Structure formats: C-alpha cells, structure tokens
C-alpha cells in the first residue's frame, strides 16, 4: 500500500498543479508573522533586561523550595482551624461579591443593551463607564476599599462587587442584545408597553444565560478572592502571603492544596448547577 514513491508523486503533482504549487505569498506572510513575534520577544528580553544567569540559579533554588515543601504540613490543629476560617472568608467574599455584582449589573446592563434603550448616548456612556470599571483590576479595587472600610474581608467583598459589576454589565448586555426579538414584539403587539415587553418578552429568554454566567464567575471569583488578601482584604491570601514571606514552605504547600481543593469543588458544584439550570447543550 505504501507505494507513494517519487515518480508517483511527480505524476500526481502534474495532474493537480493547483494543489502542489508553492504559495509564496502565503509563506511570506507566515514568515513575517513568526519573525515579528520572535522579534518582539527578543525586544522584550533586551528591554526588560532579563538576566539569564539568574534563570538557572533561580531554577535550582525553586527546586530547593519544592523539596522543602514536601510533605505539606500545616503545623498544628490550631493552624488548620485558622486556615479553614480564612478559607470560609474567601468563599464568602467570592459568593457575596458575585451576588452583589450581578444584582447591581442587571439594571445597568439593560441600559447598555441596544435593543432595550434606543437612546444612543445613554448606551454608549454606560458601555464606556463599564469598560472603565472593568479596566481596574480586583486587587486595585481591594486597595481602594481597604482605605474606605478598613482591613478585613468586607473590603474584599466590596472589591469583588466593583470589578464584577463591570464584567457582568458587559456580559449581560451582550447576552440581552443577541436575544430573539420576536417574543418582545409579540408582547408589544398584544398591547403591552415597553416595560412589559422587557419583563415578559426578553428577561425569560436571557435569564438562564445570565444565571449560567454568574455561576461561571463564582468559580473564577473564588480564585481572585484567594489573592486579594495580599493587600489586606481578608481571606486565605493573607495567610498564604505571610507564610511565603517567612519561608514556611510546608505550610505554603498545604494552603495551596487547600485552595486547589476548594476551587475544584466549587467548579464542580457550579458546573452541576449550570447543567441543571440551562441543560447541557447551551453551556458552551
């Protein structure tokens, strides 16, 4: 069967010249793209002054850290309780942050959706406002809120609410814009006013999609809630940063494993809930 010899190939090439012709234009474009990417990378190495000697030393030191991490060990039961409490704070931050952000974003996303509010100025302004809020990272929001309500998980909750407000506002308004407009028109034609058409024509369609997005973000917020402790906004990040600074590597690994388990279980639960709410097909 493997008689794909050279004379054979030449024959085929003669019969189908289009397939075998070298496309220099295409190749040139690929070469330019790859060259540009590599060039930018090299520029980065020069500009950021990446020290290659430290790369190898650092790898060795990283190996030592990993050796010191094994086996994971929290120290004492009192420590375990402290960590579990911090973990509870983290999950609370993620939960209330997601919930608050979603509740605040719902009315605003209606304003930002083209098919609900026809006024162009309102919707452009809302969009840009949401973009600005989204451009500020959760950690920065946490810094600001720590200054307002003091250290602790409450500042973390408010920070997650702020950054989720921007994200959800954008996601929700996009989901609302792609909704089928026939039900809304049906409500209008049978005598409902604009609010009726939004409530009975639009929201029932998009609500499951929004809920699924909220559940998805609950998981991702758990991840960001694990780190805002680094700037003092409560949760397990505070403990983690502290243990890294004092080089208690066994405790560090214990905390990382704790975070891994929590995030995976929340991922699992939110996945189950999403399937239950909108069915398997629409999740993607």
């Amino acid at each position: 069967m493997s008689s794909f010899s050279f004379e054979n190939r030449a024959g085929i090439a003669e019969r189908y010249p289009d397939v075998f012709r070298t496309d220099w234009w295409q190749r040139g474009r690929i070469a330019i793209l790859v060259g540009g990417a590599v060039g930018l990378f090299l520029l980065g190495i020069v500009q950021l002054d990446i020290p290659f000697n430290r790369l190898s030393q650092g790898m060795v030191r990283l190996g030592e850290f990993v050796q010191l991490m094994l086996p994971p060990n929290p120290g004492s039961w009192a420590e375990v309780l402290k960590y579990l409490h911090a973990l509870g704070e983290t999950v609370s931050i993620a939960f209330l942050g997601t919930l608050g952000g979603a509740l605040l974003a719902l009315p605003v996303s209606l304003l930002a959706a083209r098919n609900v509010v026809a006024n162009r100025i309102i919707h452009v302004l809302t969009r840009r406002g949401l973009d600005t809020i989204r451009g500020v990272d959760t950690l920065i929001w946490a810094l600001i809120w720590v200054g307002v309500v003091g250290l602790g998980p409450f500042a973390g909750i408010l920070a997650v609410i702020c950054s989720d407000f921007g994200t959800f506002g954008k996601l929700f308004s996009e989901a609302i814009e792609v909704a089928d407009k026939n039900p809304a028109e049906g409500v209008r034609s049978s005598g409902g006013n604009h609010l009726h058409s939004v409530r009975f024509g639009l929201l029932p369609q998009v609500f499951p999609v929004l809920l699924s997005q909220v559940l998805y973000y609950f998981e991702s917020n758990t991840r960001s809630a694990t780190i805002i402790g680094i700037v003092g906004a409560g949760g397990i990040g505070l403990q983690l940063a502290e243990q890294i600074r004092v080089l208690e590597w066994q405790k560090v690994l214990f905390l990382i494993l704790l975070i891994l388990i929590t995030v995976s279980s929340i991922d699992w639960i939110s996945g189950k809930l999403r399937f239950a709410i909108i069915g398997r097909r629409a999740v993607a």
Partner: protein
Amino acid sequence: MRTAVPEFPEARLRELADRYAAAIAAKRRRVWLGAAVLIAVAIAAGWMGEVSLGNFVENFWRFPAYFISIAPKFSFATAWSDLADWLWGLRRWARLLGDTLLIAYMGTLSGALCGFALCFLASANLVKSGTTVFVTRRVLEFFRTVPEIVFALIFVLAFGLGPLPGVLAIAIHTAGALGKQFAEVVENIDSKPVEGVAASGGSWVQVVRFGALPQVLSNFVSYALLRFEINVRGAAVMGFVGAGGIGQDLIEAVRKFYYTDVSAILLLIVLTVMLIDFLTEQLRHRLLGLEGSTR
C-alpha cells in the same frame, strides 16, 4: 358560514385550569425555595465575611471622597501647566507601561507555546493512553488554579525582584488556562482528517500536524489573543509583589498617598487596557472573518 368554536365541557375546563394553577404554584414554590436558600447562604456568608452595614454606611463617604482627592487640580486658566503637573512622570510611566505590555506579551507567548505542546497530550481523541491524558490534565489544572500572583510571590524569592518572575508566573498560568481551552477545541474537531492521515500511514506527529492543526489553529490564536487581554490586566498588578511593570509605582503611590499620581497611573492603565482590548477584538474579528470566508 358558521364555524364551530371547539369548546371543552365545563368539568374538563375546570380540570385543566386546576392543573395549570398547580403547575404555576409548583414553579412559584421552587422559585421561593431557591430564593430562601440563596438568602440564607448570603446571610451566612455575610456573617463569615464580616459584612457590617454600620461600618459601610458610616464610612461610605470615604469612597467618593477618595476619588475626589485623587482628582487632579485643574483650572482652565492654567490648563497646560496643570496637565503637565499632573502627568509629571509620563515618560517614566509610559516606559513602565511598555514593560508591563512586554511582560504580558512574553508571558502569553511562552505560556501559549507550553499550552500548545501540552494540549494534544490532554485530548482524549488523539492520545490512546488514559494515564497520559489524566496526568496532563491534572498538571494543567494545577498551573491554572494557583493564582499567578502566588506564583509571582514564590518566583520573586527564587529569581529575585524584577520582570523575570512576572513573566514566568504569567507564562505558567497561561499554559494552564490555554492548555485546557486548546484541549477542549481539539476534542471537538472533526475526526475524519485525523483518521485519514492515520489510515495513510502518518505518525502521531503527522496526524497532529496535518489532521488536527489546520482545524484548530485559528481558534487557538483567538483564545491566545483573549488571554493576552487578560494577562495585560494581570501584569499591571504584578508590581504589587515586586515582579516588574507599573504595579510597583501604583502601589507606592497608593501607600504613600501621592493622590494625583494614583489617578494619573490608574488612568494610564485603564486607557492601555481599553486600547489593547480594542486592538485584540479587531484582530479576532478579522481572524474569525477570514476563517468564515475560506470555508
């Protein structure tokens, strides 16, 4: 012409109405139950997260007050010199922003290459060995779930302060995130080209190169661009833990109450993020458009 409107007998009508009412009531009960559970969980989380409305009401004025205090001094009479005062460090900040973008770029590129190499091993339709798939997936999950700032904290200790730990932290996180997304794309491809290459005697690498890769490449690039967008945000805060970029200057300005500097740096970050979002969106649309036209 008369038409008979079909009408159910009274008893049948009442039965249907009752059923409808029961169905609606069951739905209402479910909604109320769900709401009750949600509220209970929210209260428990509020207790755990030390939510204090008193504190909130008492101190909320500080939130707008903060934004007012970071607002730059500005009057139209001296507009230019005010602007120059506000953005006094523009040259330095622009360089740091450029560094931030480069950190994000280098992290995304190296992470995407790692994710690219690993994703085929994590795809159940290309690898026969279940162990390989399982192990690769767990490794990717580890890379993805540990937040990049935590990697950065550890890498700063190993590699010293500077952009290098930031690049590595972003690269590892990106490898995990993109590896998973890439693997999902690969698992959804059409199996016919793959089988075709395998049937005509191709090796595993050839199967991947000629059977799988042409189907997934545009999706891969699209995901990588999206990840670049996310990484720009991530790189902006890498400096908080000493891993390079503009974050260092931002956290210093916040901690030392250099109010107008805070607003200037924040504005520059937000503008950069918006610009990058806009550019990558354009690129992605063109990419997906190209794919659509060749099909």
